[in-house]
């Protein structure tokens, strides 16, 4: 066992895993965190806490994860390379592990121009692959990036992101292989709407035998409306919602009807990706719609979650 944590145990046991995202508040509002924790309890195996996602300042992942760990939930800490150099990253990791965090998702991080502090200096001292490599070394060799011994064990299950939809397409699988070589244990992909392209990606992943070296969780996102779909297409890099899906959402009408269709669609996508070889779980990103997770997992037949 690398971390001894619940997510690792579930994935290693071969159970189809479910992780979900919790977006922290734009301030020290613990009530928001607690409410969202409640919504996600019992409907997923682990909860990702984002790290200044889209470069918008929010309550830190390490703090929120510490709270989750305290309450007996399984946090997945997210860490980008945009805001912290290798010193701060390692310091935060020491603190996170000390406070009970066992899962880490290593990300490069959206550029600050997208967020609410576009005039800030960014860091990018390292990139996500170097971060993965560094954490693996801290865990397995007990050495910091600078070469000093680490005072205490660092049992972390190391995660990374993959974008099967970015360019250049041919290189995406090679980059995944690079992350595996660097030491990544699990992958959460970018949101899937283009099933054929994702299937093609997974075929190449399996071809290279990568599915035997890393656990891949397919990323999904419920759409609230056709408007939301169009917004994603125009504003979010790396995710493309195909026309058929936008049309389907348009056909569903508005408000509750549209939302219901979005949830149904999400559950369908989950069922589709579950059939694909190499997919070991699903990561549900319901941005500011954490209530949806319970409904999606229900509809997709993923409840109840096992206790391992």
């Amino acid at each position: 066992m690398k971390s001894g944590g619940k997510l690792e145990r579930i994935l290693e046991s071969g159970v189809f895993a479910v992780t979900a995202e919790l977006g922290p508040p734009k301030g020290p509002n613990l009530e928001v965190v607690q409410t969202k924790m409640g919504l996600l309890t019992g409907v997923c195996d682990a909860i990702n806490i984002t790290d200044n996602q889209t470069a918008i300042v929010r309550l830190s992942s390490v703090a929120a994860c510490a709270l989750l760990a305290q309450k007996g939930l399984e946090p997945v800490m997210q860490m980008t390379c945009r805001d912290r150099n290798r010193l701060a990253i390692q310091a935060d990791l020491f603190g996170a592990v000390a406070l009970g965090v066992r899962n880490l998702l290593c990300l490069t991080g959206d550029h600050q121009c997208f967020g609410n502090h576009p005039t800030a200096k960014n860091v990018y001292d390292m990139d996500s692959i170097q971060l993965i490599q560094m954490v693996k070394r801290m865990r397995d060799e007990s050495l910091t990036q600078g070469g000093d011994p680490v005072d205490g064990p660092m049992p972390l299950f190391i995660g990374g992101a993959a974008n099967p939809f970015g360019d250049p397409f041919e290189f995406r699988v090679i980059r995944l292989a690079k992350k595996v070589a660097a030491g990544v244990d699990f992958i959460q992909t970018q949101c899937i709407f283009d099933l054929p392209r994702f299937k093609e990606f997974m075929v190449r992943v399996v071809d290279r035998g990568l599915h035997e070296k890393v656990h891949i969780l397919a990323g999904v996102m419920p759409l609230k409306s056709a408007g939301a779909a169009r917004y994603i297409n125009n504003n979010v890099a790396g995710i493309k919602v195909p026309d058929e899906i936008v049309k389907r959402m348009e056909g569903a009408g508005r408000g509750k009807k549209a939302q219901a269709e979005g949830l149904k669609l999400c559950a369908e996508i989950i069922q589709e990706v579950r059939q694909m070889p190499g997919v070991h779980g699903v990561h549900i990103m319901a941005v500011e719609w954490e209530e949806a997770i319970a409904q999606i997992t229900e509809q997709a037949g993923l409840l109840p979650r096992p206790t391992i």
Partner: protein
Amino acid sequence: MIVAKRKPLPEIAANLQSTRKLLIVGCNTCVAICLAGGEKEVAVMGSALHLALRNTNPAIVITQRSIERQCEEEFNAPLAEEIAAHDVVLSMACGVGVQTLAEQFPSAIVYPALNTAFMGRPEERGIWSERCAGCGNCVLDKFGGVCPIARCSKNLLNGPCGGSEQGKCEVDPKNIDCAWQLIYDRLSRIGQLDRLLEVEPPKDWSTSRHGGPRKIVREDMVL
């Protein structure tokens, strides 16, 4: 070359409201090539400042000069008397030139007319883009001659990130190519794609500006 762009006129004029005698000094090297601070631009600046100050400082006397290269004292030296005879020097050189004048003539008031931006190349007439970040440890051999430090918005060494779409960088798809698409294409073309299979370790930033302002001393050249 160093690429710079003229500052907005109001910003320049703001410092000249009570200046009696202004000396504008242009530079005929980099900033002349990027059409920002050469002889022509000095003339335009003189005229524009007269117009901008016509109500608040109509009596201002403006002298225009242009020299070969403002970053070298020998070229600036002939200006010593004139500089002393004027209240303010407006340098239309890059930041290096402005500072050289200020260091060489420490009693002078030297203001910059340009915003110095980057080390880059002309792509076509009127368009210049960044190519080198002066990191102090060139790794262009590893990336097919495309610099990920200067040209990748996140200076990734194991890119691309998820924001690469159709060969463009999500930070500014209109103007920024995805450096990693360029690297991938170039390495493919020269048959060195396997270079990208190795994980490039974290950069030693101590040779860059992050390590402090740099100085190169060639002992063999110093008498």
